[in-house]
């Protein structure tokens, strides 16, 4: 046993938590004092509090579990910060990327069975089956699923991400983004135009299927030619960085990023052998949709976070995704495990005629942007957007400030002018989420709970604490082994 000389040798400087009456003596002595606004951590259970305390790093004890976690997290942060996502290609069909996928449909969020899916997700499944011609009618499509004829899997488990329902079927073309630093690729389907009537909101009317065919036959070949004409592909990080300075969060606002993409694609298309009509159709599609860039933003974030996944002991979240029923997270050091909790309904504004009663719980893989330190984490960059999600510019700053308390670093590649150009907070640490009892904030669109009714609003939503509490429990178990 050592004596404790430090207790008496330093000037006493106190942190106090609990009953504030006990501070009086410290206050009157003039010693430095920080009073905490203490609350029980996480879900409020003492067992979780004790587990969490086992995960705290210690600069004088390199072997303790917390120090191992800290070292792993430093490595993860390095991988995130040095990622170079580049748009390199369009896969004409998902089946090109995954030749064995057969009758698999990928979907947003953590794993879910057909019977448990929300309305929009079921609608998206039916639409994809019709698009693939696996069944002649919606009723037949449902029967096909009910008879076990379709296999489901999360996009995330295939290196892919999909917005809202996130359905990817074998014939769909995909953006291909490669992380030049680590070599891994990520995939995302293209944004459909057509507003409410889109597969990503669960619509499956004939015009929806037509829209998907248009993407397959017009947009995909054109964009494939366009990206082929950009030497080395289109580096996405500088583009996203620039668009943050132009008022985007690259999750719910992609206006600037879409324009920058438009600029890059235009010249390349005009140089290509693509016909003038097709080029025009493609540019019209991109130009008509402020959110067109979202697919690339998501794929860039996915390519970044997949490279950060799989570092043993790391407590950093590498995926945060919603299937319309549950939110699931994956943690770098916890293999492919999903930690799930019930999805909330986003809080924000509703389009005229709609209310919270019409809203589907949180859905989509687009929270990969928050996972990578963008979206709500970079909200300070996008004051124009806060009105859309029912807040004030001060709220935008607040989200970026507060998310710094649950992350382990800042991304110098994505700076926030309104916060004195500090990097956006990045690297969600499940330990910090539980310790601060602060759930990660996600910017999102709100879907109607009935299939095919489309977007009815937008807002912010928070990932459920249960995901993070369970992940902390799992990390503590590693330590116990």
């Amino acid at each position, binding site marked *: 046993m050592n004596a404790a000389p*430090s207790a008496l040798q330093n000037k006493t400087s106190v*942190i106090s938590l609990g009953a504030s009456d006990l501070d009086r*003596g410290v206050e009157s002595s003039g010693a430095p004092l920080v009073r905490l*606004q203490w609350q029980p951590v996480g879900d409020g259970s003492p067992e979780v509090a004790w587990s969490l305390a086992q995960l705290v790093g210690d600069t004088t004890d390199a072997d303790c579990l917390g120090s191992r976690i800290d070292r792993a997290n430093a490595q993860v942060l390095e991988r995130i910060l040095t990622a170079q996502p580049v748009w390199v290609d369009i896969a004409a069909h998902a089946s090109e990327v995954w030749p064995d996928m057969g009758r698999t449909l990928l979907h947003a969020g953590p794993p879910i069975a057909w019977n448990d899916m929300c309305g929009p997700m079921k609608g998206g499944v039916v639409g994809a089956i019709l698009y693939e011609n696996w069944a002649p009618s919606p009723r037949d499509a449902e029967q096909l699923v009910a008879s076990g004829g379709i296999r489901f899997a999360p996009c995330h488990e295939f290196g892919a991400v999909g917005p809202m329902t996130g359905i990817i079927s074998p014939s769909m073309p995909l953006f291909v983004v490669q992380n030049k630093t680590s070599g891994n690729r990520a995939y995302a389907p293209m944004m459909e135009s057509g507003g409410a009537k889109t597969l990503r909101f669960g619509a499956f009317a004939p015009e929806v299927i037509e829209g998907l065919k248009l993407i397959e036959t017009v947009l995909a070949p054109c964009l494939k030619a366009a990206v082929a004409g950009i030497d080395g592909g289109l580096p996405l990080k500088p583009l996203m*960085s620039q668009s943050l300075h132009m008022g985007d969060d690259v999750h719910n606002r992609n206006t600037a990023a879409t324009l920058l993409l438009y600029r890059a694609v235009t010249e390349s298309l005009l140089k290509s052998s693509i016909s003038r009509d097709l080029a025009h159709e493609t540019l019209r599609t991109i130009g008509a949709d402020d959110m067109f860039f979202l697919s690339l933003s998501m794929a860039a974030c996915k390519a970044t976070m997949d490279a950060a996944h799989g570092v043993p002991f790391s407590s950093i979240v590498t995926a945060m995704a919603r299937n319309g029923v549950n939110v699931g997270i994956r943690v770098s050091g916890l293999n492919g495990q999903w930690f799930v909790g019930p999805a909330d309904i986003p809080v924000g504004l509703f389009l005229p005629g709609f209310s919270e009663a019409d809203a589907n719980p949180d859905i989509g893989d687009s929270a990969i942007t928050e996972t990578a330190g963008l979206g709500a984490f970079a909200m300070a960059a996008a004051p124009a957007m806060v009105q859309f999600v029912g807040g004030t510019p001060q709220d935008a700053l607040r989200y970026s400030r507060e998310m710094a308390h649950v992350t382990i670093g800042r991304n110098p590649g994505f700076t926030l002018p309104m916060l004195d150009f500090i990097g956006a907070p990045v690297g969600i640490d499940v330990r910090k989420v539980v310790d601060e009892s602060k759930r990660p904030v996600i910017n999102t669109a709100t879907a109607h709970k009935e299939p095919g009714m489309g977007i009815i609003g937008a807002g912010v939503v928070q990932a459920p604490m249960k995901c993070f509490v369970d992940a902390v429990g799992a990390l503590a178990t590693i330590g116990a082994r």
Partner: protein
Amino acid sequence: MAIQSSIKANLYKDSVSLMRISQVTVARTGVQRVTLLMGTRSNKEFLQQAGLMSPALEGAKPGDIMIVVADDAPEKRAAAEQEIHSLIVGEEPKGGSAEAAADAPPRSISRGVAIADHADLAMISVPGPYAAAEALKALRRGLNVLLFSDNVPIEQEQAIKRVAAQKGLLVMGPDCGTAIINGVPLGFANVVRRGAIGLVGASGTGLQEVMCQIHRHGQGISQAIGTGSHDVSSEVGGITMLQGLELLAADAQTKVVAIVSKPPARDVQKRVIERAGAIGKPVVICFLGGEPAASAGNVHRTSSLEETARQAVALTGARQPGGDEQSIEALATRICASLAPTQRYLRGLYSGGTFCSEAQTIWRAAGIRTRSNAPLAEADRLADVEASQGHTAIDLGSDEFTVGRPHPMIDYGVRIERLLKEADDPTVACIVLDVVLGYGSHPNPAEILAPAIRRAKAAARAQGRELPVICFVCGTDADPQAYETQKAMLADAGAEIVGSSTGAARAAQAIASRMEADDNATGRRVMQGGER
């Protein structure tokens, strides 16, 4: 001018950001020139023309930042380069800045440490089931801990004390009510002057009483280290008490050490006495309620708080303070003269647990059997804590009275209720009350207690007898409540003020002994009431 070049790979910044970083770096480091450019072909050509290109930059890609620092002094170049890298990453808002002020108040230890001025001690009073977790987080970040919370699971207490001992940090507690570290009063603490006597104690109010008496004897305290009540059990092994001894042994300001505790577990007791014998400074040990023990070498054994304070003061070389035995005897005589023959029993209503056990120890030594909710021996446990039985000493700070309400040092409600109930009992010979001053305690206890004493005395008088109330005030003239004023207000209400906890218990004991002696002498037999 010498130049130094490097690349920050894979990081895009626009030219405005880069110019700003250059400008700030020049302003902060005084370096001659800083040039930051993305590694595009045209930027490389520009560097070539400006004579700033170097082979190190040839491999730079358009997504890399080229860093060129020019100055003849290598240390300036190094400082500038370091500054550039930190500015590229971005600086966290500084304490006191508008940006820091806009941030939410901290709720976690980790954020607290981040914004504090070199925090080195966490004072934790959150509910017991959460307390050890917070303590462990604090220890991992290099903070000592004062754990005021009680009801911490024993295995968690053991775990945090193990980590603390490995790291050379202190865990004072769980259930540690008071400490003074480097002159900073923590928890319930009195304002005492700094001086040469270092205290370690497992009993909070015992520490408070000893430090107040030392102050009133004109001496002072170097450090007062609370250990919490479980520390001296064999499960915990006295880890904190032994660490405290080492700390005081090494502390230059401490000339004399005093230990105040309930009797530790046998093995712990042995280790503490052994260590005390070897620290090279005089040590006064008071294991209150334990077997009397002989002093040996530098270790002086005492059996009351009063004796502990006096002994410690004497060992500093100051004049040994005189006792108040005579005035106590006189008080007992005066009180006995006013009592009716039925009034035979003592009722101690304590807010301080140590005072309750000190009284029982003193009364036991005089052959008085005392019932208590915190008895010295299990056989003397009160059947019903709400109903006194014969001679009774109640610790109103123990769990059965404090669940869901403030401690009786803060909230006098329960004590006053009990006082009025005892006033109705014709067998009561006298009441003993402690009044604890200092930080954390009631801001003006006499204001509440004096009227209650008046009411109690009046109630007894209405039934044709006097109700003596003996009070002692644990406090100093420097306490925020003002020691002399509190005493005067209580005396004005008819309370008898005694100078120490030990004196109050002795006066009560003298009264009980005399009443019994009178009883025997006159052959009277009181058939009602309790038994002896």
